[in-house]
Structure formats: C-alpha cells, structure tokens
C-alpha cells in the first residue's frame, strides 16, 4: 500500500468537512475521488499534505504522515497540483518549473526534466521567460502539472487538472498523465469534475458524499454502477 487513510477528519474552523474518510491506494495506481461540489474532495487532498488541521491516520509508504508540516510531506515525494493552480505569478515560467524541483537532490537532471516538460507541453517552452501570471488559464494548469512533476514524486495529487482546459487539451493532458504513470510509476490521486474522463484514466475509484466514502471499487465497475451513472456521468 502506498497510501492508507483511516478515519480522516478535517475542519476549517468550526466547519467540519471530513467525517472519517477511509481509503487506500496501491503503488503505481491511479485512484480517483468522485463526488459533488462540497463533498470534501479538495479538502481530502489538502488534508493529505498537511494544509488543514486533521485527525485520523494517514500512512504514506508505511510512514505516519498526519500532522507533519506540508514541506516535510512534500519532501517524502508527494506533489500537489492545487485547486486554483498555485502559480507563482510574478516569477517566470522557467522559475516556476525550477521551484518544482527545489528539494530534489539530483540537481543535474533538472535541466533534462525541464526539457521533458517542454516535450509534454510545448507551449510552455514558448512561454519560458514570460511572467507566469500572464499565461492563460490553461497554460497555467499545464504549468501546475509540470511543476508538480518536476519533483519526480512518488504520489501526485491532482485537484481538477482539467479545469479551464479546452476539451482537446484535456485529452492530451490525460494521455500524458497515463504515460507518466506507466513509464515512471508515479501513483496518482485524482479529483475531477469530469467523472467520465477520470474513470477512464483511473483503475480505482471512491465515491464521496459529505465527507465520507460511500462507494468504492474498480473504476470500470464504478462506471457501470447505476447510481453513479445517473448522478455523475449524466446518462
């Protein structure tokens, strides 16, 4: 098990958002969390990397990580493509990418990894020296994914990576994510509004309602589930 979550609770001030989440994911897998707005998907990702106060148990690669500082969790190999993209708006595209690899030990390979990102998203090469805040929403989303991959993470947390992207670009992005998953064995935990695309990419899925897991299973089984189909896939 790469990630094991037991009885995870989280709250913003007095507002409790997660009420005992339980889920797990295998190393090398792509797992998706599905649910309506406000179900607690984003909060779950934020809780995993120490950005909200939590109680419960989170194990990453066997180690307890709940309650640790965000930067320490990141250093274990957890990269996060946050809600809202988290662009360093006043820095250049290239500086954004360099920051992604900030705590890597093998500095020599940063250049070749940056080239790899430009290979995935050629538009970022054109924007290399440009202030990242001036990039379009879609470009910033690609930058956010690239920045996270620059860490060479073991686990990639993706919060709505398709947000703001044109349909063709989304397909391209998901193709790249699958390639990264297969070639580099990066495990991914994916939160998506676009449930049918998420289920297409993922091998495992959890359905969340008001801060609890209500259904889990293999992605292809979840896709055939009648309730899921009506509520989230819309056919």
């Amino acid at each position, binding site marked *: 098990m790469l990630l094991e979550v037991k009885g995870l609770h989280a709250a913003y001030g007095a507002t409790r958002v997660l009420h005992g989440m339980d889920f797990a994911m295998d190393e090398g897998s792509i797992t998706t969390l599905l649910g309506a707005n406000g179900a607690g998907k984003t909060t779950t990702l934020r809780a995993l990397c120490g950005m909200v106060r939590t109680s419960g148990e989170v194990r990453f690669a066997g180690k307890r990580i709940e309650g640790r500082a*965000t930067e320490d969790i990141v*250093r274990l190999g957890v*990269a996060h493509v946050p809600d809202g993209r988290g662009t360093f*708006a006043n*820095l250049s595209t290239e*500086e954004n990418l360099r920051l992604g690899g*900030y*705590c890597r030990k093998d500095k020599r390979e940063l250049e070749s990894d940056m080239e790899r990102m430009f290979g995935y998203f050629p538009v970022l090469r054109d924007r290399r020296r440009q202030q990242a805040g001036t*990039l379009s929403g879609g470009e910033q989303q690609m930058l956010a994914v690239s920045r996270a991959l620059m860490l060479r993470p073991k686990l990639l947390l993706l919060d709505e990576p398709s947000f703001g992207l044109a349909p063709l670009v989304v397909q391209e992005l998901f193709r790249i994510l699958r390639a990264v998953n297969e070639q580099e064995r990066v495990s991914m935990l994916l939160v998506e509004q676009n449930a049918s695309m998420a289920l297409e990419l993922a091998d495992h899925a959890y359905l969340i309602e008001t801060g609890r897991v209500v259904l889990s299973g293999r992605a292809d089984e979840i896709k055939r589930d009648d309730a899921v189909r009506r509520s989230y896939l819309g056919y």
Partner: protein
Amino acid sequence: MTFEALVLQVLAGLATGSIYASLALALVMIYQATHLVNFAQGELAMFATYLAWSLINAGISYWPAFLITVGLAFVLGVLIERLVIRPVERAPVLAVVVVFIGLLVILNSVAGWIFTYTIKSFPSPFPEWMGVRYMAPHQVGAFGVTLIMLALLYLFFRFTPLGLAMRAAAQNPESSRLVGIRVGWMLALGWGLAAAVGAVAGMMVAPIVYLDPNMMGGILLYAFAAALLGGIDSPFGAVVGGLVVGVLENVLGAFVIGNELKLVVALALIVGVLLVRPSGFFGTVHVSRV
C-alpha cells in the same frame, strides 16, 4: 550657483543616496515578505554599527570587523524574526506595528545603556588616494561598497536556488510549501539579509553623521522616502529612489532651501508620493489572469 558646485552636490548626493538606497532596500525586503514596514530597521543598523565600533576598539582592523559585523547583524536579524516576529505572524497588522516600534525603542535604549549617548567618531576605511576631483575618499568608497553589495544581492536573488526560493516564499507561501520550501526559514533569512544590508548602510553613514544611538533617525526617514518613491515592493525602485532622494536632498539643501530644512525634503517627498502616486515609480503592477 556654478556648474562645478552643482556637480559637487550631485556627486555628494549620490554617495549619501547610495546609503539611503541600502536601507530602503532592507525595508523593501521585509515589506515584500510581510507587507509591513519595519520601523526598527534603522535601529538595527545603528546597533550593528556599535558592534563594529566595539570590534574596532578591541583592536580588530577595519575590514575583518566589517565582515564580522555583517555576519553578526545577519544572525541578529534571524534571531529577531524567530523569537519576536514569528509569534505575532498571524496577529493583526497594528499588533505587529507595535512590535516593530517596541523593537525600535528597545534597540535604541539598549544601545544608549551599553554605549552611552555620547557622540563617537567612526572610522572611514578608505585611503586618501581614493578621492577624486569632486568626491572625498569616503564618498567614493561608500558608493563603491554599496554598488558591490547591491550587485551581490542581485546575483544571489536572481541566479541561486536559495534566492529563488526566498522570492517564492515571500510572494506565495502556500505554493512554496507545496514544492517543499521551508517558508518560515526563508522569512528568517530575509530578516537576516535585511539586517546585514542595514549594517553596511550604518557603517558607511557613521563616519558622516557620527555614531550615537539616534544616528539613524533621519537616515531612516530618507530611506522611507526612497522606498516610497521607488515603490515599496520594488527592490530596484528602492535603489533608484535612494539615489534620487540623496541628490535632491543635497542639491535643494545647498541651493534652494538651505541645510536646516534638508529633512523637510524627505517628508515632502513621502507626502507627495503618497498623494500623487501611492505605488511609487517602479511599484509592480500586478498582472494576473484568473
């Protein structure tokens, strides 16, 4: 007013202006990270200058004492951030401002208590031959030292991973944590660097204004004017602002309003900039798409 006299005042202005620029830069560095103006920046510089004075009096020669002082000021800055500023990180703005003013008073009083309020002379390390036709050796030297320091800071922030991480932490703490940057330590390093920059300013200005616990009062006012003129969030603007304020102060003081009213130039600039162009001349216009 002869042309020669004007050149003389402009050059003298650039020399003192470079010192204002350093202190203004220190203010901007703290402002960028905390969005607050550190009123104690001048007193930190004054305190560091006393440390240099003590070292020199203890028989250490000037340049080693200079470097040790810069190092000590750095440590002092880091310690103040960790021990005094950190606990009020999430406090309301006014609380932090009170902490800054408290620091100002404490540093001032402690310096007076240890070193007394008697005015002391502070040596200039620059030999006679450094003087040029219109500039005294100390003016040339202070200008040169400041330029070297600014160049080093620029290279550090622009080209090193740590410099990049410090800029990132100042502008986007949450994303910085998500790439593994220890944001708290970056802020502490920023305080250390700002204190070190201030220490250099203090040691360069002390031979001109003499050493006493209140020596930085006027200088800090000029630095405020410089930082505001350039744009409080622009390091480049702070440097340009410092030079402009130095030149204006000298030229207006010598030819227009007289030396007694020099400080008024700084106050008039502060009020004027706030009225006409609150973001200063190089204050960044933030561009972002949503």
